[in-house]
């Protein structure tokens, strides 16, 4: 519909080095592609161009590159990958702001499925571990929820914009493919649900889920997560808040071992 955009294509080209791996078990290699330059192009629009003409600079016809993407406006969380060695969302990586050749690699903290796609199941499993939901009684009409102050809303809103892209795990030195550290995203979600007026009734079980191996105290405080978060979520603050809650609960456990069943207790918000 925008004829102006289409005519902006020139003879300039963009060079890409892209990681290719057919199978998680097989070794990978780089393929090099040249793509016609277009104003406003981003990494995804170039990958689409390669789909329409999957030929390397050596003139070899190859399978189109496999990558994950959906919304292309940085809200679905699909297209996180390493671009020139830094994890970021491919859709908002504008070509004009990148040095060439542009190197695309899959995130390293998740198992590769193929090429640039990885398996991020551990992130969704972590959301189960921290019980990331408000346990409502049912979907029948029970009237309005509790009132909330605009200030609380503004804090919770930012936390709830997490797109589960995996950037924070990718940048974290504590996360490896072998360990089960829940990572900053899930810790921050636990904080979100513990702030919710209903969610806070179950705050203790979320805090408890962050105790022990793989929990919040595995954080090495490198603070890389907050630097790479595309949604600028205050992840370090969330980790600090949940760390404090875990410490408080640990102390409480020591001094009040004989108290009522822990799973149903109502902890601090």
């Amino acid at each position, binding site marked *: 519909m925008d004829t102006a955009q289409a005519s902006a294509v020139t003879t300039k080209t963009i060079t890409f080095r892209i990681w290719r791996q057919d199978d998680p078990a097989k070794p990978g290699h780089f393929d090099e592609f040249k793509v016609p330059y277009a104003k406003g192009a981003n990494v995804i629009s170039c990958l689409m161009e390669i789909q329409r003409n999957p030929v390397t600079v050596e003139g070899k016809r190859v399978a189109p590159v496999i990558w*994950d993407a959906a919304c292309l406006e940085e809200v679905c969380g699909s297209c996180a990958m390493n671009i020139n060695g830094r994890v970021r969302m491919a859709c908002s990586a504008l070509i004009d702001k990148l040095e060439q050749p542009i190197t695309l690699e899959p995130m390293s903290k998740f198992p590769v499925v193929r090429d640039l796609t990885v398996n991020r199941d551990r992130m969704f499993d972590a959301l189960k571990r921290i019980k990331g939901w408000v346990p409502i009684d049912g979907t029948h009409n029970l009237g309005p929820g509790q009132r909330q102050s605009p200030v609380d809303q503004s804090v919770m809103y930012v936390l709830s914009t997490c797109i589960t892209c995996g950037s924070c795990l990718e940048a974290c030195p504590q996360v490896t493919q072998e360990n089960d550290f829940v990572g900053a995203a899930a810790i921050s979600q636990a904080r979100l649900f513990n702030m919710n007026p209903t969610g806070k009734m179950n705050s203790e079980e979320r805090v408890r889920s962050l105790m022990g191996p793989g929990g919040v105290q595995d954080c090495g405080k490198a603070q890389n997560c907050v630097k790479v978060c595309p949604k600028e979520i205050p992840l370090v603050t969330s980790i600090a808040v949940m760390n404090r809650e875990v410490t408080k609960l640990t102390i409480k456990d020591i001094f009040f071992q004989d108290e009522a069943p822990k799973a149903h207790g109502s902890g601090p918000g």
Partner: protein
Amino acid sequence: MAPAARFTVVGGGLAGLMTTIKLAEAGHQVDVLSLVPVKRSHSVCAQGGINGAVNTKGEGDHPDIHVKDTLRGGDFLAEQVSVKGMCHAAPGIIYLLDRMGVTFNRTPEGLLDFRRFGGTLHHRTAFAGATTGQQLLYALDEQVRRYEAEGKVTKYEYWEWLGTVKDDSGRCIGSVAVDLRTMEIRTFPAEAVCLATGGPGIVFGRSTNSIINTGTAAGRAYMEGAHYANGEFIQVHPTSIPGEDKLRLMSESVRGEGGRVWVPRKKGDTRAPQQIPEAERWYFLEEKYPKYKNLVPRDVATREIFMVCRELGMGINGRDGVYLDVTHIPAPVLDAKIKGVMEIYEKFVGDDPRKVPMVIFPGMHYSMGGLYVNFEADPKTLTPAEGSPKNQSTTIPGLYAAGEADYAFHGANRLGANSLLSCIYSGMIGGPAMASFAKSQGTSAAAMPEKHFQAARQYWQDRFATMLKMSGTENPYGLAKELGDTMTENCTVVRYNDRLKKTIEKIRELKDRWKNVNVLDTGNVANRALSYTNQLWNMFELGEVIATSALLRDESRGAHYKPDFSLPEPKTKDPTQDPEWMSLWRARHEKWAKTTVATYSEAGPKIHYEDIPTPVLDPEPRWYA
């Protein structure tokens, strides 16, 4: 007690997840099939909000006014019983979402805040910043995760639905799907299947839709006998940013919060927008529509912007683009209410919209049409009868549709912030309908002879094996681009019959060339080109339905605009005062206030028309000036 009945929900957006929650809550087992992890579904892109006449602003709003705005907004092509049910359920739905933890914006008193949106004069839209769809999807995703942890829901993410499994009577008893990672093809027996698979944006190449929205499932269901209704009604959103890979939506909430649309009064004015004084700016929507101003319904705003650029040549620098200006609104207000869209503009265009007016142009956004579904009216309330197995049912017994994939709620034009609502409402009544259907059947799908499943599985295994060997010269992604270019050029804002005929010829040509596709990838892990080649055919089918339906509807109504068949302008400001015009309107309405229904045939869609019962509201001229 008998073992829990098993159902399949296809699609993990708002409609699919709400259907899932309703079934799981009632104790059933649900398999959710989704192309992507459900949290990444396209509902996440909705920005502005969700409508519900909660009336907290002292404006006297009421669900009945919401019904009227919706039916009038859709120029009386929407299914009235379902619209009434939806609008009356809306306040309860917003409260439910609030209880689930959606971080809706609040008033100083701590109540839910509401903003203005198009096609209404009331503050009726609840919102969470400008990422309301994301927040709503997450809330439902979290509830489904809870059921998943309890073992009631099994998610099959990166699975693509391929088609139905039917018994000898034609009842849908399950589905065939392919694992997009391992390429395994298997069947999923189900007492009922719901397609909550979203819209067909990618049929138009670039749109505001996610790239997963190819419409493939609806296209395939249509080929298998489900009727497809109102395909010609395609919403082109007035305000998007054109891009190489997609058209990025700039929410209607930008105008809801006071954003103004304008172009320089002087044609070809090359001054920077900030240098152009107020008196030399043409606020064409405010001038022409003094009552609704920038918040006229989307089809109206889109046509005005399109005409200003294409017919008057008044677009910025003579190109396709007008200003969407929020620079008069304080930055903290913008950040509190529409930060999400401000950031999208900043990131993808590079300018700060708080300081420089945005440049926008209409972009394909939504399909009002979709799979034909039924409803059973409760005679007392004239809303869908609770638990009726008819609600949301397609013309294939046992197959249901919900969300953008169904045709019912929006008629000829959808009002902003009604889509999140229709997704959730259709899931709320679709889930119970599926359960009732299962109860009404003598034989459980699980007890059906294996031969039905075997045959369906074999069909798809053979089809994929054949496609994997396709080694012709056509690139499937290239063919898709040609389809998108044709559809965008001829089937969006302005439509002419000669061009629509050419579009249909073009699609037939593309179908022919599809037979000469090179599948590009012979791998057996995550072979996306293979699944795309299959999807592409279904996209052609939907494209043909859309173009044919548009060709045959010789009138202008809502988003479907044909200059050659439009009514003249009435002589009075209030058209009901112009008897001559009213008789023209009545004649037109008599002939065309009907649902377009497409049924599949190999030679092309067969179209017939269905009368629309109007028990809720009598049609009247749709007029916003």
